[in-house]
C-alpha cells in the first residue's frame, strides 16, 4: 500500500484519541457496492477534514474474498484495510471469524447519528451486534416486476403467481438466490407470503415454501446467475415476470437496461425483507486510523450526508436515518428519482411490515437447500 499505510509498528490498541495525531491515509474496501452511495459522502468529508484524513484509497471486491484477505493480513500482523463497507454476508462472516473491532458500545458516544436510525435500519443494526455500523438502508423486496404490454393482469398472490407460471412456462424468472439480491429476497419473503411455520428457520419451518418452490420449478426454465440477466430477459421479452426489489426496479430503468414502462407489484401477505450496508473496522488498525474512521462514520450518519444515499435509486430509498427527505438529495439524484421513482413506494414502505433478513447461517442453509432441491433438480441425473 502507500508507504505510510503499513501499520506494522503503529499502535493498534490502547485508548483511541478523538482526533488522529496526524492526517491519515485511509484505505477503504467496499464489498457491497456501497461506494456508489457513500463515496460522495467520504470524499466530501475528506475535502472538509484534511487534518483528519489526508487521502482515501478505494478498493472494491466481492464479499467472499473479504474474509480471506483480512485474515491473511491479521495473521501477518499488518492490516492495511482501515474501513470495510459490507453487506450482511460479509459482516456476518467477519463476526464469525472474529475479524472486526467492536465499535459498540465503546464508541457509541462518537456516533450520535445512530440514535436517529429509521426503525428498519435500527433492526438491521441489531443484526450487526457490536461490530458494524449501518450506513445505508433500504427495505428491498420482494417485488415482482413486469412489462404491462406482456402481462396485462399480474398475479397478486403467491398461489396466483404459481398458476400464472403454470400457464406461462418459462415466463417467470428469478436469479439463483446465492448470486442475487432479488433472488434471495424472494426466497426469504416467500415464507411470509405463504404463511409458513417459521419464516426464520429455513430448515424446519419452511415446508410450504420449499413445496411451493419445487412446484414453481416445474415452470421455470432458467435460473440466471445474476440479477442483471433477469433484467435483460425482462427487457427483451424472454422473461415476463421477474423477482425484484426497490433498487433493482428504479436503477436499471434509470440506466436503460429495463424499459421505463416496467411495473412492479407485490403479492398478498407481503413483508419487506430489509437490507443494509455497514461500516466496519478490522482488528489491527492503528488507533489513529480508528479515530479518523470513526469521525468519518459519524459524519456519514448526518442527514445532509445521508441524503446522498438516494443516489439514482440504486438502494431506494437509501438513508438509514430519519428525516432525510428526497428534497435534500443532490440535484441529479432527485431528478432521476422524480422521473423513475414510484410514488406508491412511500405508502408501501409505510404500510407493510418490515422484517430483518435471515441470519447468515440460516441464509447459507437456505441457499444450500435451494441449490440441492430446487436449482440442482433442474437436470435429472
Amino acid at each position, binding site marked *: 500500500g502507500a508507504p505510510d499505510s503499513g501499520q506494522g509498528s503503529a499502535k493498534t490498541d490502547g485508548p483511541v484519541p478523538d482526533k488522529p495525531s496526524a492526517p491519515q491515509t485511509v484505505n477503504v474496501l467496499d464489498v457491497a457496492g456501497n461506494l456508489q452511495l457513500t463515496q460522495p459522502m467520504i470524499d466530501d468529508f475528506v475535502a472538509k477534514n484534511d487534518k483528519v484524513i489526508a487521502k482515501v484509497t478505494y478498493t472494491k471486491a466481492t464479499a467472499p474474498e473479504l474474509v480471506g484477505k483480512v485474515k491473511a493480513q491479521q495473521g501477518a500482523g499488518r492490516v492495511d484495510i482501515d474501513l470495510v463497507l459490507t453487506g450482511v454476508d460479509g459482516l456476518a462472516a467477519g463476526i464469525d471469524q472474529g475479524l472486526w473491532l467492536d465499535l459498540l458500545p465503546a464508541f457509541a458516544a462518537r456516533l450520535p447519528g445512530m440514535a436517529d436510525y429509521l426503525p428498519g435500519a435500527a433492526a438491521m443494526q441489531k443484526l450487526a451486534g457490536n461490530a458494524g455500523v449501518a450506513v445505508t438502508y433500504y427495505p428491498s423486496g420482494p417485488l415482482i416486476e413486469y412489462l404491462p404490454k406482456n402481462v396485462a393482469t399480474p398475479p397478486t398472490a403467491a398461489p396466483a403467481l404459481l398458476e400464472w407460471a403454470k400457464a406461462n412456462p418459462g415466463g417467470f424468472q428469478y436469479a439463483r438466490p446465492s448470486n442475487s439480491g432479488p433472488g434471495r429476497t424472494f426466497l426469504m419473503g416467500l415464507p411470509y407470503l405463504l404463511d409458513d411455520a417459521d419464516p426464520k428457520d429455513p430448515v424446519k419451518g419452511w415446508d410450504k415454501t420449499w413445496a411451493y418452490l419445487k412446484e414453481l420449478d416445474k415452470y421455470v426454465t432458467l435460473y440466471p446467475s445474476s440479477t442483471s440477466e433477469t433484467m*435483460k430477459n425482462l427487457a427483451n421479452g424472454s422473461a415476463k415476470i421477474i423477482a425484484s426489489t426497490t433498487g433493482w426496479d428504479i436503477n436499471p430503468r434509470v440506466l436503460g437496461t429495463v424499459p421505463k414502462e416496467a411495473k412492479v407489484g407485490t403479492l398478498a401477505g407481503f413483508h419487506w425483507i430489509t437490507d443494509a450496508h455497514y461500516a466496519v473496522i478490522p482488528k489491527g488498525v492503528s488507533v489513529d486510523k480508528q479515530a479518523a474512521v470513526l469521525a468519518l462514520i459519524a459524519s456519514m450518519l448526518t442527514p445532509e450526508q445521508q441524503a446522498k444515499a438516494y443516489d439514482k435509486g440504486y438502494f431506494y430509498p437509501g438513508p438509514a436515518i430519519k428525516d432525510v427527505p428526497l428534497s435534500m438529495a443532490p440535484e441529479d439524484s432527485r431528478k432521476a428519482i422524480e422521473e423513475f421513482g414510484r410514488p406508491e413506494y412511500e405508502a408501501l414502505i409505510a404500510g407493510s411490515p418490515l422484517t430483518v433478513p435471515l441470519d447468515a447461517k440460516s441464509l447459507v442453509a437456505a441457499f444450500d437447500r435451494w441449490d440441492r432441491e430446487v*436449482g440442482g433438480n433442474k437436470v435429472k441425473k
Partner: protein
Amino acid sequence: MVALSHRLADRGIDRHLFLLVPATLFVAALFIYPFCYGLGLSLQPAQGGAFGAYREFFTDAYQRDTIMTTLKIALPAALLNVVASVPIAYKMRGRFRGKRLLTTVLVVPITLGTVLTAEGLLNFLGPTGWFNRTLLAAGIVDTPLTLTHNYTGVFLSLVITGFPFAFLLVLSYLSGIDPSLERAGATLGAGWAQRFFRITLPLLAPGLATTFCLTFVLAFSVFPSAILVGDPSGSTRVISIAAYEAAYVRYDYAAGSAAALIMGLVELIVIAVVLGLRSLLYTGTTSGGKG
C-alpha cells in the same frame, strides 16, 4: 574420486542441476508451506475428526457428483481443443499469404478473458441473441434454442478460451519438427495421412500430452464460466463451485480445502495417466541426422 564425477554425470548429475535451484526454491518457499497449511486445514474440520471433511464430501452425493460433472465437462473440452488444434496447426505450417494474420486471429480468443466470453455467449447465444434470431429468421427453428445456462454454454466457453491456448502450443511444438522427416516419409511411399500419423504425430505426441494436461487443468478449474453461463446448481455444478461455496459462502475452510484437494487429486490422476503414457513415448530431438 574423479571417476565419481563422471559416474554422476553419466547418471545426469552435474553442475547443471543448479539451474533447478531457483525454481525449486521458489516453489518450495511460496507453495509448499502454504499448501501444507491448506492440507492441514482440510484435516481440521469443526467436527468429524481428521478426515471428517473428506468423509462428508464423499458421503454427500450432491458434492461427490461434482467430480463426475467436472470430468464430463473438462475431459471432452480439453480433448476437443487439442484434437482440433492439431489439424489446423498442421495446415498452418507451410507458408502462405495471410498466415500471420490467421494465426493472430486464431489466438485472439485467449485475450477475451472469462468475463467477455461469458457476456458474449449470453448475448450472442441467448434466447434473443443474434444466433437464435438468425435461426428464427431463417425458419430453421420455431422456438429459440437454449444454448446458455446449461452444459452447452460452459462447454462452448471452454472451447473459446481453451482452443487458442492449445492451438498456440501445438503450433509451436509442431514448428520444432524437422520437415525433412516428412519428406523422407513421402519418398518411402507414405501418403499425407501416414506421414502425419506415423512421423509427425509421434514426434508431436509429447507436446500434445503436455498441451492436453494444461488445457485440461484450465478446463477442470472452470469456475467463473460455470457460474456465468452455466447452471451452477445443477448440470454444471463443478467441483470448484463446491470448493468455493464451502470456503467463501459457508466459510468452512476445512471443507473448502478438502474439496480443493480432492479436485487437485483428481486432476493429478488424470495427468499422471497422460504423463505416464507420455513417458512411454519417444521424447528427444526431432531432427533426423546431419545438418
